[in-house]
């Protein structure tokens, strides 16, 4: 994760948030055009931050998938653990995205690690829920026949149960991806990477020059990234779902 990005702001970015082009009334006169101007003049930083945002989300999603499937694998056989996992994933959503910020800053400081911790935590929840449901939903007759022809527990899990639960788990990953795209913006609060810095810097200078443009850039960027990622995940689903279990 260390190569994710440096917590130090790229030198050009500081300039981006400083009013460079005249007074406010100039900007107000042409809203759409000024966003366009802002995009053009800050293209490099926006592209860089978008890439970082996407990269943060992708890596956290991958990590969260491994964690969630691992937890689900431990839990799904037991009814008590299954419902515990469900409770965790249901109640986890009620935690505001900002709440863990304070908690993670203490042990992890600022930068990439707290951002990864926060995003991964939220990313785990929908995947965990779906993984437990998906694994429990696998036809027990199929599992029994796997055991009956001499497949071991691990072999049965990886070759039978996981592939059959995969479409459901992937559904969880898609929900998770949409959700943490937004949550990743919070990463800027702990000086992490991503588009969040445009949003927060704009909000903190509201009414200042380029503030609205900055916020809009961040928000629209996040939405676009979310759409792109969702499309990519649909594609991944097509590629990784065996023809025999496609709906």
């Amino acid at each position, binding site marked *: 994760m260390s190569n994710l990005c440096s917590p130090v702001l790229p030198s050009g970015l500081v300039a981006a948030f400083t009013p460079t082009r005249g007074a406010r009334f100039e900007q107000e006169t042409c809203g759409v055009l000024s966003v366009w101007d802002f995009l053009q003049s800050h293209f490099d930083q926006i592209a860089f931050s978008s890439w970082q945002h996407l990269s943060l989300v992708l890596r956290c999603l991958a990590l969260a998938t491994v964690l969630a499937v691992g937890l689900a694998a431990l839990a799904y056989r037991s009814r008590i653990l299954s419902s515990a996992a469900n409770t965790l994933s249901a109640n986890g959503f009620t935690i505001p995205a900002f709440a863990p910020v304070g908690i993670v800053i203490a042990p992890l400081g600022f930068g990439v690690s707290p951002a990864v911790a926060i995003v991964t935590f939220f990313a785990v929840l929908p995947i965990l829920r779906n993984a437990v449901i998906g694994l429990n939903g696998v036809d027990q007759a199929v599992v029994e026949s*796997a055991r*009956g022809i001499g497949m071991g527990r691990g072999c049965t899990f990886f070759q039978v149960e996981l592939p059959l639960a995969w479409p459901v788990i992937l559904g969880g990953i898609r929900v998770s991806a949409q959700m943490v795209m937004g949550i990743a913006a919070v990463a800027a609060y702990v000086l992490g990477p991503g588009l969040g810095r445009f949003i927060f810097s704009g909000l903190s200078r509201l009414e200042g020059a380029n503030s609205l443009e900055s916020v809009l850039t961040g928000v629209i960027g996040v939405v676009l990234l979310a759409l792109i990622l969702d499309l990519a995940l649909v594609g991944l689903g097509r590629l990784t779902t065996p023809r025999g279990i496609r709906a």
Partner: protein
Amino acid sequence: MPETTITEVPDVSGKSILLEGVTKRYPGQKSPAVDGITLEIPAGKIVMLVGPSGCGKTTTLKMINRLIEPTQGRIVLGSEDVTDIDGDELRRRIGYVIQAGGLFPHLTVAANIAIVPKMLGWDKKRIADRVDELFELVSLDPADYRNRFPKELSGGQQQRVGVARALAADPPVLLMDEPFGVVDPITRQRLQDELLRIQDELHKTIVIVTHDFDEAVKLGDWIVVFSDGAHIVQYDTPERILAEPANEFVENFIGSGAGLKQLTLRRVGDVTLADAVIAPLAK
């Protein structure tokens, strides 16, 4: 295990099975599901386990391949005590078929059949040849069916593939749990006939659980009638069970028309008597 090559099958490739004082007790239940059963199943025969639901016949079947671990007792396969060997390793040597085949929906039919040989580490060529051979054995055209997925097959075809998969590594013993339970009556008859034809060719030891007494009469060389706790009420040939039911319980289980059922059951080749099998009543 007698070495059997792919092309030639010896007269009897099956092995006898002996359950000795086998008990299954589930925690929190007063009476054991299976209460000290002792049962010998002769090599190369079809033995039917019948009885009312909940009598422990399925549990008994699943203890033969230790899918359910017995609480007490010994399981002997041929001359080998398999009570304590690795369960997965044991199950790879015993074919297992469940209702509707239990096929893996995410794998092609050919991949389903190839699973056990693959686990046993056969090379690709040998697996491919074996899969084709099994398709022929269960009357499916390999070229047509190889790359289909289970959902693209009818219930009867799925059941056939289930049998092919169970026979893939040429196991001496085949266990079937209500194998023809969910197919329509006409397909069921056809599958039963086919199983008898396959058995004529292979002479495996086949143990089948069924609740359908007519099926037991049709398929079985021997029939075991269970009452609760898997107590053996009668272990006999179909003719003798029909002609001389051991008691009222068996009589009721056979249902009416025992005489008629008797008419349908004999296969000409089997008229000479099989070796007697001693089945001490469990107590």
